[in-house]
């Protein structure tokens, strides 16, 4: 009879200081040593982690009212526009937003040295940020202009809300073209000069729960150094599988999460602005998600090692920009981590864009929080759509293609 545990039982053990918690890296060795059944009995929680660029990130801010009051229809933070088409003195600063004066790619490849992601980092680091606001006047909101230097502690609420984070799996990007290209997957040299990938592999949250059996709405997580929650499925959440070895093995792919948390609790070590040459600016986000080991099957997925997790190799010189299907092969995360893979018979040096060492640090921090009894697991209010629902992305038909 295989073991079945409940969230309640695991939380009782956490409160009593008796829970056994391993990181997604540590559990691999434990399963190899003791087998699935024994490990499922012994281990209560597996902690995952990831730290990398996640463009679909941003924060809702409420600045507090001016005297006299103002609607704030247009808002800039350190000259980066924030979306203010919501209630008075609320705004959303998105990670990829740029100053109107940013030269972008006019001097190709552009630097994109400061964007919304950097504004968020500055706020979290406690640095002052210059607010500028404009509005039309109304009887209730007569003021039309305002400027202020504000710090995160000075404003009412700051809610990190990231509509699409934690991509379950991601392409290993390469370039088969004749010139260097500048992409959100980094700088890719011509003729398969290099490749970039961006997943923490065996530590990555959604690779370790491919059926979405435990990660759901309301799951309490590590977010940006503070506590956050899974709010919903992310945009473009189309979970499925990549098959390899003639369908003998499969790796989850296509799932995403929408995450929420209190920015004021977070730490700039785990939310850093980032710039990709020739592409744009973004935010590096640190996320750690606990997986409760409710049974052997959940453990079996949580304990998958890099050698059993695969990423697709995709050509960013043609098939990606032209939105064409097709890939140049599959590669395991174990092979990616060696730094050298084979594509079209050619040896290609590869490097990650997400930090494995930071991902590991997050998994350990989350483990410590749980061991200390500070962090209890939450049973999802509802589960997210899983791979069996067959969700597929829709392409946008433009007028010129009708």
């Amino acid at each position: 009879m295989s073991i079945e545990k409940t969230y309640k039982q695991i939380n009782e053990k956490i409160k009593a200081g008796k829970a056994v918690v391993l990181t997604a890296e540590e559990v691999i060795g434990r399963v190899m040593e003791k087998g699935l059944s024994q490990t499922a009995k012994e281990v209560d929680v597996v902690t995952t982690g990831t730290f990398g660029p996640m463009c679909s990130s941003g924060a809702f801010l409420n600045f507090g009212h001016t005297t006299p009051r103002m609607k704030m229809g247009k808002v800039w933070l350190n000259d980066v526009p924030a979306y203010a088409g919501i209630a008075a003195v609320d705004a959303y600063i998105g990670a990829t937003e740029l100053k109107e004066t940013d030269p972008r790619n006019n001097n190709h490849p552009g630097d994109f040295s400061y964007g919304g992601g950097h504004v968020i980092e500055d706020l979290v680091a406690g640095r002052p940020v210059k607010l500028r606001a404009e509005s039309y006047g109304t009887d209730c909101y007569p003021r039309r202009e305002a400027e202020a230097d504000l710090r995160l502690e000075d404003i009412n609420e700051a809610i990190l809300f990231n509509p699409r984070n934690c991509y379950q799996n991601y392409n290993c990007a390469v370039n088969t073209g004749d010139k260097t290209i500048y992409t959100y997957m980094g700088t890719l040299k011509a003729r398969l000069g290099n490749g970039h990938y961006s997943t923490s592999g065996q530590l990555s949250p959604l690779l370790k729960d491919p059926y979405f059996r435990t990660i759901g709405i309301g799951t309490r997580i590590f977010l940006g150094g503070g506590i956050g929650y899974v709010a919903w499925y992310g945009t473009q959440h189309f979970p499925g599988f990549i098959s390899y070895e003639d369908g003998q093995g499969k790796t989850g792919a296509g799932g995403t999460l929408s995450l929420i948390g209190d920015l004021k609790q977070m730490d700039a070590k785990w939310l850093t602005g980032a710039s990709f040459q020739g592409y744009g600016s973004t935010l590096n986000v640190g996320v750690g998600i606990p997986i409760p080991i409710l049974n052997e099957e959940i453990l079996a997925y949580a304990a998958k090692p890099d050698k059993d997790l695969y990423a697709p190799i995709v050509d960013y010189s043609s098939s990606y920009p032209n939105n064409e299907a097709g890939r140049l092969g599959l590669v395991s995360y174990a092979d990616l981590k060696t730094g050298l893979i084979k594509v079209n018979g050619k040896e290609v040096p590869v490097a990650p864009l997400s930090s494995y060492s930071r991902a590991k640090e997050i998994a350990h921090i989350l483990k410590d929080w749980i061991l200390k009894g500070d962090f209890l697991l939450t049973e999802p209010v509802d589960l997210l759509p899983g791979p069996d629902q067959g969700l597929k992305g829709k392409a946008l038909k433009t007028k010129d293609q009708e």
Partner: protein
Amino acid sequence: MSPEKIVLRFSSENSDKPIIYHLAKDYDLIINIVKATINPHKEGTMVLELTGEKYNEGIEFLRQQGIKVDSLCQEIIRNEDKCTHCGACTVHCPTDALHMKRPEMEIVFNRAECIICQVCVGICPVKAMEVRI
């Protein structure tokens, strides 16, 4: 006259040309090759000390050949507080001065190997690589 220290960057189109021969023969320059590397994609980097009366003409010749010439009066430092150890720089560094330490997956910066090509400065997403003059 004290020698000028410079960095040459070759593309795959010009890395097979006998550049040093021409510098010596046609421009009568005294050349000390401090460091030279060529990567599998035939992109090369070379650090030279050059002396001679036709120094400026020699530099002009190099530029005409499509070789990027920079003076070596700077150094590159890594801002340890900023580096997130992602790895983006490692496949772009021509000398492996920046490389991934395995299995820790941490980035090591070996300044002795750095030829100040500055590629990492543009590549690093968090601007952890800084130029010091």
